[in-house]
């Protein structure tokens, strides 16, 4: 019965972790605890498998034993897949932030990342920078506004610098698309159609 009970928990924890991530609008805090728990689950189950294989060595060819070991191992693989998915999806969000915000990742978001994620971000930033230098193309420019028009109309949300002019809050201006684009991305200007 205890074995059946254990099996019914399957990989609920790992799935819940992924659900939380999917539910969140930006990115939730890295759940160190949950990852640790699932890791423990995998290791415990692995230990059980080892014990079964040694204790029941003589029964290894019996279907019930073989199926049980197989199923347990499959649960472990599933758990591993879920945690890797959790990690990778978070990295995807972090990468996207680097593209959208350049180097300006707000502090309150930085706090939500694990130590390892912080390191990843730094190294990813360097990797991207090196590649862009290598090919001589600034890839993070013009992410959202294609220079279909040379000049566009913008509304100033926060005072900022565009080209060589300082624009005051609340004013409307007709500016060069490529000059305005970083400001639009940062939310300081809005594109007026």
């Amino acid at each position, binding site marked *: 019965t205890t074995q059946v009970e254990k099996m019914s928990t399957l990989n609920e924890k790992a799935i819940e972790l992924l659900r939380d991530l999917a539910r969140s609008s930006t990115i939730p805090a890295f759940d160190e605890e949950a*990852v*640790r728990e699932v*890791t423990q689950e*995998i*290791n415990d189950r*692995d*230990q059980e498998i080892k014990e079964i294989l040694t204790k029941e060595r003589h029964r290894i060819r019996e279907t019930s034993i073989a199926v049980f070991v197989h199923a347990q191992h499959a649960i*472990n*693989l599933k758990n*591993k*897949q879920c*945690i*890797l998915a959790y*990690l*990778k999806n978070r*990295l995807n969000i972090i*990468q996207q932030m680097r593209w959208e915000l350049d180097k300006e990742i707000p502090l309150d978001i930085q706090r939500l990342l*694990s130590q*390892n*994620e912080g*390191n*990843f971000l730094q*190294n*990813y930033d360097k*990797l991207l920078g090196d*590649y862009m230098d*290598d*090919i*001589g*193309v*600034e*890839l993070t*420019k*013009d992410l959202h506004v*294609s*220079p279909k028009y*040379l000049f566009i109309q913008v509304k100033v949300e926060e005072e900022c610098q565009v080209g060589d002019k300082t624009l005051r809050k609340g004013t409307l201006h007709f500016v060069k*698309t*490529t000059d305005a684009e970083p400001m639009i991305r940062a939310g300081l200007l809005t594109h007026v159609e």
Partner: protein
Amino acid sequence: MASKAFEEELDNLNDSDASIAEYQTSIIDRINSALFNERWSPELLEFQLDLTKELTEKIEEQLEEMKKNLPENEEERTRKSLFVKFQQMEVDRLSYSLRSYFRTRLLKIEQQISSIKVDEEYRERLSDKEKEYADRYWNLLEKHFNDSFLQNLSNPRLRSLTDEQQENLVVRPNFNRYVIIRAKEALGLVEVDVDLGQTVDIKEGDVLLVRYEPVQDLLMEGKIELLG
């Protein structure tokens, strides 16, 4: 007389403009075509080394031209300003297309990094610099997964990212996706659906919505282009 000379002048102008225009559209068309194909294809396509080189040179040429055209004084400034604006627009347009092309590919590489790692042939579609990026990116991922999780697993055989048991960790391109194609030449009878045995007689310029897989080779051969 005067009008005839004028007509001849117009003809000359039109010809030279047309040839310039033809050349300009040609390179823009080619990069946009490469860009769209890359954008809408589920798989990474062959890297267009020659095209990107040509485009980079063209952009530099244009920038050089613009530098030469810098106005000397106030009077020249107003006279040349419209022309400079057009030159700037051209540079922006070319740069944007080039940028989009590289960017689309890079994002695809990141998404499909496991396929690239596992499949030698697939990896060959990357440029040398992209290969370097892919390797470094993979190392970053591996390091992160190890540090955050895998190293804490007691069974060393579970720590691998690429063994055969974990085939489902590898992200493969989705060849079942539907794409919009345009035929660049007459293709004759093409089987667009193997299960239903559906064939279509495709003429030059035809636009169709089909599954990617049956037309994959046609794209590689340059006989079709992707529009969506």
